[in-house]
């Protein structure tokens, strides 16, 4: 699933403030599942914006609607009949959804209310972890289902660096497990260690730590 996070309210307000009538569109797909852009968040953002503009004394109408997906033309029936009434559209979908909406209604300014974060899975309620960097050349079959591109801090492709700690954690961040240590352990348990000997040609990876995200309202649950 695509995981996204709400932009700061002020940033959203700045984007839509030149318009009188704005439609806030939620997405019932990934961003709903990751608790960032579903009906509830749409209602919440609409309230916050209305309040914000009310405090500023600006007369801006914000309406809301959530559709099944913003990345598929099959779900735009109701929306097609509505957009003409609005000066601008605010999308609570991922980057793909925002672009789909913008392509469909080319005469309307479309603004993203979310920052698309990563492709990942639910670790717990409201807590998501990146597990795929959509590199386009999947090696999971040879790495025991553990992605070295996403989960190794250096995205190393041919075994660990020298920084694996004795407890199997990563030198970059002790809370992160060394991906190659994990790959070795799992391949060993499956008697497939020969796979680790294969040499893969180098690629150019952008150095990034594995990302994780807790939606704002759930931060209290996991407070340290």
């Amino acid at each position, binding site marked *: 699933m695509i995981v996204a996070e709400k932009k700061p309210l002020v940033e959203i307000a700045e984007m839509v403030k030149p318009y009188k009538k704005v439609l806030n569109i939620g997405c019932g*797909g990934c961003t*709903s599942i990751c608790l960032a852009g*579903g*009906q509830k968040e749409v209602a919440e953002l609409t309230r916050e914006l209305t309040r914000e503009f009310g405090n500023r004394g600006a007369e801006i109408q914000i309406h809301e609607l959530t559709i099944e997906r913003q990345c598929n033309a099959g779900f735009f029936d109701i929306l097609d009949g509505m957009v003409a009434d609005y000066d601008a559209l605010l999308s609570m979908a991922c980057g793909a959804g925002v672009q789909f909406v913008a392509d469909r209604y080319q005469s309307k300014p479309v603004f993203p209310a979310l920052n698309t974060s990563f492709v990942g899975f639910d670790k717990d309620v409201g807590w998501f972890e990146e597990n795929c960097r959509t590199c386009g050349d999947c090696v999971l079959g040879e790495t025991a289902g553990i992605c070295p591109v996403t989960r190794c801090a250096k995205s190393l492709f041919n075994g660990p660096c020298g920084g694996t700690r004795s407890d199997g954690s990563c030198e970059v961040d002790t809370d992160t497990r060394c991906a190659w240590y994990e790959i070795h352990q799992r391949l060993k348990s499956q008697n497939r260690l020969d796979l680790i000997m294969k040499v893969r040609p180098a690629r150019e990876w952008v150095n990034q730590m594995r990302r994780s995200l807790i939606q704002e309202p759930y931060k209290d649950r996991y407070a340290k």
Partner: protein
Amino acid sequence: MSAPVDQEQIKSMLTAHRSKMKRYLSHCMHCSLCAESCFLFTKNNGDPQYMPSFKVLNSLGKLYEKDGRVDRAFLEKIKPLVWKSCALCGRCYCPVGVDVPAMIAFARGICRSQGVFPDDEQSWL
């Protein structure tokens, strides 16, 4: 496609998750407070068919009521309830704490086990 429904298989699936699913079903107080949390309910102008509890009571609820003794026509009848009327976005609210998405997913699994799933070109899940 017209093969008879394997009632024994449905029954064993129902039994395997009985303690969880039956509890959830029996704890639905039929209060309808889940309705607004479903964006499909809102989008479809408050049609009760889209209420999370309605979908679950009339699919999985009926399966348990009939104890798995259902025919293909029944599964075809609940198909739109568990697929087309639900995006499985997992956001249903229940005051008691009933996990509606888990029940829809389970009902889908039972349908799937009998080869009942959206397969036309218009299907989107």
